[in-house]
């Protein structure tokens, strides 16, 4: 019973990290610990597979649709309005912004 409770807590703690693992957003230590858990926990491996499918499926949606031709032309025309002598943020303003 104690062991089951510990396993359940461990799964609960690892769920969010499974999502982060898919995005390569874990530290090497976190990744190692999670992979160790996944090697022994079928439930978390199943969750990993579902979350991976969602991530890959959403990524496939990225290819559609495309911006309209007229909107693209207007944006390119807008970008060409940037004067070549327009200054970027001066050094003293950047300094004030950071302080």
């Amino acid at each position, binding site marked *: 019973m104690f062991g089951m409770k510990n396993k359940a807590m461990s799964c609960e703690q690892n*769920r*969010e990290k*499974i*999502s*982060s693992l898919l*995005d390569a*957003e874990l530290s090497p230590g976190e990744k190692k610990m999670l992979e160790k858990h996944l090697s022994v926990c*079928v*439930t978390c491996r*199943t*969750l990993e*597979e*579902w*979350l*991976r*499918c*969602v*991530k*890959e*499926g*959403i*990524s*496939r*949606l*990225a290819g559609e*649709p*495309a*911006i*309209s031709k007229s*909107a*693209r032309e*207007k*944006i*390119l025309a*807008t*970008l*060409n*309005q*940037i004067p*070549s002598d*327009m*200054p*970027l*943020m001066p050094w003293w303003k*950047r300094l004030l912004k950071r302080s």
Partner: protein
Amino acid sequence: MSVVASRSGKSGIKEEAAAYIDQLYRVAYHLTKQKDDADDLVQETYLRAINNYAQFESGTNLKAWLTRILYNMFVNRYHRERKTVSFDQPAAETDISWLDTMASSNPGPEAQFLQAELKDKLKEALDSLSEEFATPIVLVDIGGFSYAEVAEITSCPIGTVRSRLFRARAVLAGKLREYVRHEK
């Protein structure tokens, strides 16, 4: 994916900004869910970016800067018109209780997921998410941003981004799982 703005001068920045039109549009489309709204949002983003161009710091992440402008405009313009669901609300939309009952003997969903029909279901499920859920997914999986960049764009702590992204994926996985089980 992190892209740092060119230091090669304004013409380089113009070209780099133009190269992000399609990526910004995809983010705008999946936030607004309407092609025309996305067209308008991206055009206005570039217009505002040029008006605030002097504030752009050379050498910083131009794509993230443009996306932050886009996101802020989206929130200001479209947020009030859309139904939003708080994470504190016990709405069915935020229900991830299926994780607690997930049978370890479940077969993997990958084979079924490859079917074109599920792509439509996933789009439908993404569109049904509230803004808090949808935004991190759109920015990470469609925009290609890191958690740190999403935190900067949305002005949220990185832990919130991490948590919302997991919950959003879990909600979508739950919806797809129900669909797959229903179809079996």
